């Protein structure tokens, strides 16, 4: 119907200068923004394999940062999804001790079957996530504040209830061989099984973000919440689902730590909160939402874990550790950002041809 208008090449088009064909082929190489994160990660890896010696690159050395990365990564993934959707979840910080105390009290203190403890811990995670989600959508209070409130509330509940129920802030847990094998063991004596859980969750979350409709909704909500709602996305349900997944994953980490370390403690902490946000942001997710990738989050998690653990393999005085971590973080992110901007500016070659 309209073909005539299209088929007729614009009169002046041929008069245009041809597009520069001198563009280096690096343009297409760095097309994917994750290449930046990858290069950042490789940079710190190289740094520590130089200063950390052979041990750092040995299986044991790799296990050291991979184990840390796996636990952080399991939490960072749903936190990253939330951030892409424009939300934050601080309550993971107390979800971890809450779930490990839950399983320890149920299966340790009260000697119930371990599966009861596991289900209760995970159920708690889902419940807290649900409450977070409902509060966020009902009250319209920013999720930073809502989950801050649940962070405090849950920490208080955990401390108070633990003392009432078990009389102590630290409870031992003996779990059977199956639970140990599945959730709290070392493979080859070095690699935590959580590593495999992490890989599984990476695949699931990667699938969701890249290949499912749900993933598209998450990206759209973070990009423009109003337009997303106008486009018919059930934003409320997506929000609740995301908070439930971050609650679940944090509960999973707390529970598997309790099984792995045979004990649980009520320590209120902010380190997982901060570290998960850091890993996600290093991985290139926008703090304001709307952009991010699973590969980036994984690379950010690895970068942060390598920097954090690698320092122990160098001969540097521990007093200067923080300084080195700070400088390396900045360097990694800088590299990361430089390449991301390059990737977003350089469109693939084919595009420039048509102009």
């Amino acid at each position, binding site marked *: 119907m309209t073909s005539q208008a299209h088929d007729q090449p614009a009169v002046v088009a041929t008069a245009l200068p041809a597009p520069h064909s001198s563009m280096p082929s690096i343009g297409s190489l760095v097309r994917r923004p994750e290449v930046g994160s990858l290069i950042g990660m490789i940079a710190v890896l190289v740094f520590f394999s130089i200063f950390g010696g052979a*041990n750092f690159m*040995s*299986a*044991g*050395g790799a*296990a*050291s940062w991979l*184990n*840390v990365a796996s636990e952080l990564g399991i939490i960072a993934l749903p936190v990253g999804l939330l951030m892409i959707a424009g939300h934050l979840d601080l309550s993971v*910080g107390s979800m*971890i*001790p809450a779930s490990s105390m839950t399983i320890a009290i149920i299966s340790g203190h009260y000697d119930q079957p371990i599966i009861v403890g596991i289900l209760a811990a995970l159920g708690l995670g889902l419940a807290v996530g649900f409450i977070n989600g409902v509060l966020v959508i009902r009250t319209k209070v920013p999720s930073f504040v809502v989950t801050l409130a649940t962070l*405090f509330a849950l*920490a*208080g509940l955990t*401390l108070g209830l633990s003392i009432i129920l078990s009389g*102590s*802030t*630290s409870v*031992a*847990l003996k779990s059977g061989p199956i639970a140990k094998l599945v959730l709290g063991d070392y493979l080859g*004596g*070095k690699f935590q099984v959580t590593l495999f859980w992490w890989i599984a969750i990476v695949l699931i979350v990667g699938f969701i973000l890249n290949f499912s409709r749900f993933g598209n909704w998450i990206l759209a909500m973070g990009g423009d919440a109003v337009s997303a709602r106008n486009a018919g996305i059930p934003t409320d349900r997506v929000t609740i689902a995301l908070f439930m997944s971050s609650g679940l994953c944090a509960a999973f980490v707390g529970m598997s*730590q309790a099984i*792995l*370390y*045979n*004990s649980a*403690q*009520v*320590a*209120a*902490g*902010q*380190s*997982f909160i901060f570290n998960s946000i850091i890993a996600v942001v290093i991985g290139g997710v926008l703090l304001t939402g709307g952009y991010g990738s699973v590969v980036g989050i994984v690379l950010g998690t690895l970068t942060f874990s390598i920097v*954090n*653990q690698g320092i*122990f*393999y160098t*001969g540097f*005085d*521990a*007093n200067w*550790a*923080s300084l080195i971590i700070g400088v390396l973080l900045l360097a990694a992110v800088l590299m990361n950002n430089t390449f991301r901007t390059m990737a977003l500016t350089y469109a693939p070659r084919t595009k420039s041809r048509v102009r």
Partner: protein
Amino acid sequence: AMADGAKIFVIGGKADDPFWSKVKKGADDAGKVTELTGGSVTWLGPQNYDNLGPDAAKLIRTALSQKPSAIVGPDWVPEAMDDAFKEVVAAGVPLIIYNSGGMDAAKRLGAMNYVGNEEYAAGLGGGAYFGSHGAKNVLCVNTLPGSTNTEDRCKGIADAIAKSGGKSTQLPLPSSSFGNPTAVAEAIKAAVLKDNTLDGLITISAGDANSAANAITQANLGDKVKLASFDMDETGLQRIKDGTQMFSIDQQPYLQGYLAVSLLNGFVNYGLDLPTKPVLTGPGIVDAANVDATMGGAAAGAR
């Protein structure tokens, strides 16, 4: 291992923790000898105490993966850390438990020795001192509630003072106050104002004692509420000297690091093994009687 000297790994607290920086200083000082024989001493500490047991277990494994000649470590959370320590022993690496766990832990794990004291015993010592000086109602200010070692300190105080007919309650502060001296001071002030039968107060760290001193002054209860602290710093010692603080419980952290590393250094290099087991560094009480001697060491960062 003798050819290229001893590679000793020390697992400890945060490097910027006032208590652990003294342990580290001791370990570093002992390490100078190790370095003379071509060895090294490496300090591994967590970035925070949020997830202490698991983090420390990871540090033990990190040390083990670097093919160490010997390892020093505290048994803070036995359930979480014992497996890792057992791997150390199974790998044939000499191990010394220090700071917490006691000789029991050393025996259970197959470690060579134990250096240090116990939090609970330190608490008992403090409680007994309070009791013998007439305190009946002591507040134990815990800025890290939920963490085992601080809970043990307060528990020791309570148990010991109960023997002399007094009582002790704990004041757990929320994490939003941690590291903020004013928030700690004002919380303590509220607590001492609320309960007018309080006559003793102890903090779990030297920094908190500075806040507590402030709180007591503000509440105008300097005559009534006697202040004490676990660990100590220059400012606290000055207060003991001035008479505004009753005592500090000293675990001699410097010695914990120094002795543990020295023992292992001698063992790895020369096969020396001290027959004394355990090697106890505390608890010691610093009060007006011995404060002057202590101050010199504190100024050098060793006490």
